[in-house]
């Protein structure tokens, strides 16, 4: 079995996995709906005389950080569904056995899954971020900006936001592979997307926390991150990518070595 075939098989699995679809669709839909709500409420405030502090450019990116939960769920479900026992539980009943007998080269199986996670989260991210940016400018009405000007001001940051989605999904995927279960990564990653995230709390305790994947990665698109002396966007991209590669490497090492 070649890698393209394995990728195609993994793609078909995700398309037929309701939870994975729900994760992506709901994550994107929720982000867009809430972005729209933020857009119209900002317009009302601007109409009422609030000064434009330049945040109208950013509005489409504001929900990018919490919105990533959708692709996190999808990335985790792709792995946890393999290890969930179906009705015949003793010994068999887990899809992972079929997957591994179908594609015995485990590195290839994992690579195919990672490719699917990256593609799906990339498309979801692009649709969400792009859609959010366009929508907010339309909803802002006369306070909105022309696309050319918007892109000029934002620069690479929308791309950074999409990259943040892809890399976050891949990290969640790697952790799920290591844990062989969805519970641990689900709790860890969802708790970390809350208001006062765990990693943000850590930035208060140690300055080393600025190199944590999500803290560094958020610098790719965030303005006004509520902590001081963060890394530059480019460093952030490098740091988060390094984390992703390292975690995928460890996950692959475990996946190849251990019994199913």
């Amino acid at each position: 079995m070649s890698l393209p075939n394995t990728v195609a098989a993994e793609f078909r699995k995700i398309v037929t996995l309701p939870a994975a679809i729900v994760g992506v669709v709901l994550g994107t839909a929720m982000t867009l709906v809430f972005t729209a709500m933020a857009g119209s409420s900002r317009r009302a405030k601007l109409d009422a005389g609030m000064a434009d502090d330049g945040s109208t450019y950013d509005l489409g990116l504001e929900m990018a950080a919490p919105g990533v939960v959708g692709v996190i769920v999808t990335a985790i479900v792709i792995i946890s569904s393999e290890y969930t026992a179906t009705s015949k539980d003793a010994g068999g009943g887990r899809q992972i056995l079929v997957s591994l007998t179908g594609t015995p080269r485990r590195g290839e199986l994992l690579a195919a899954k990672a490719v699917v996670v990256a593609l799906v989260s990339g498309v979801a991210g692009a649709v969400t971020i792009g859609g959010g940016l366009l929508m907010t400018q339309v909803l802002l009405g006369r306070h909105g900006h022309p696309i050319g000007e918007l892109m000029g001001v934002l620069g690479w940051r929308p791309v950074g936001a999409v990259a943040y989605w892809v890399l976050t999904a891949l990290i969640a995927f790697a952790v799920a592979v290591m844990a062989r279960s969805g519970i641990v990564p689900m709790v860890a990653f969802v708790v970390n997307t809350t208001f006062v995230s765990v990693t943000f709390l850590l930035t208060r305790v140690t300055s080393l926390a600025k190199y944590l994947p999500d803290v560094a990665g958020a610098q790719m698109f965030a303005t006004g991150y509520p902590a001081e002396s963060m890394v530059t966007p480019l460093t952030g991209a490098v740091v988060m990518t390094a984390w992703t590669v390292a975690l995928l490497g460890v996950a692959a090492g475990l996946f190849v070595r251990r019994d199913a």
Partner: protein
Amino acid sequence: MIEITGLTKRHGKKLAISDVSFTVAPGRVTGFLGPNGAGKSSTLRILLGLDRADAGTALIGGRPYRRLRDPLRTVGSLIEGSGAHRSRTARAHLSWVARSNGLARSRVGEVLEEVGLADVAGKRVGTFSLGMGQRLGMAAALLGTPDVLVLDEPGNGLDPDGIRWIRRLLKEYAQGGRTVLLSSHLMSEMAETADDLIVISGGRVVTSGPLHEVTAGHASLEEAFFALTDPAHRAGRAS
């Protein structure tokens, strides 16, 4: 004594079983036969109070399963494997089952011994083979020393020794005046074990009665089964 009367169940528009009626007498092993999708599982699930019937009743000793007091003291059942969570040990699994019906703790050790799992009682169910899971399911069924046994494919995954053990156990159970309803696809095994037969096909009971009556006129139980359940086969024989 099991009495099933006019049982009907739909899954959406599809009729799973339609007007199924039969009785299972004490003191005998009753075989329940039918092809995949014939309605065996639907019937057994309703009998055990897992699913609800759209019409009809399924009574055990005159009461529906959901009205039985401490049901495991009356009915022992096995459907689909171990029925245990994979991260619990066999002993822990049987402990909560025993507790839920107020059964003595000592029964856990006794049934583990009886089904041959005493050595692996402290192991997680997830590490069990299919046959060991099946033995654990049997252990839970025997826990309350019930008067009625309802077993779906108990021999599934068992080694020859295990299959012989089940056969002997069921015969002993019936000889003691208790009721045994046994569902299986293994015709030769069924022919050796069952006293009575109920054959279901397409959601309806096609025949029921003592083994020798059902197989009368056929070379074997298998031949009789195909003749009863496969319309095409029946037509072929007639021509």
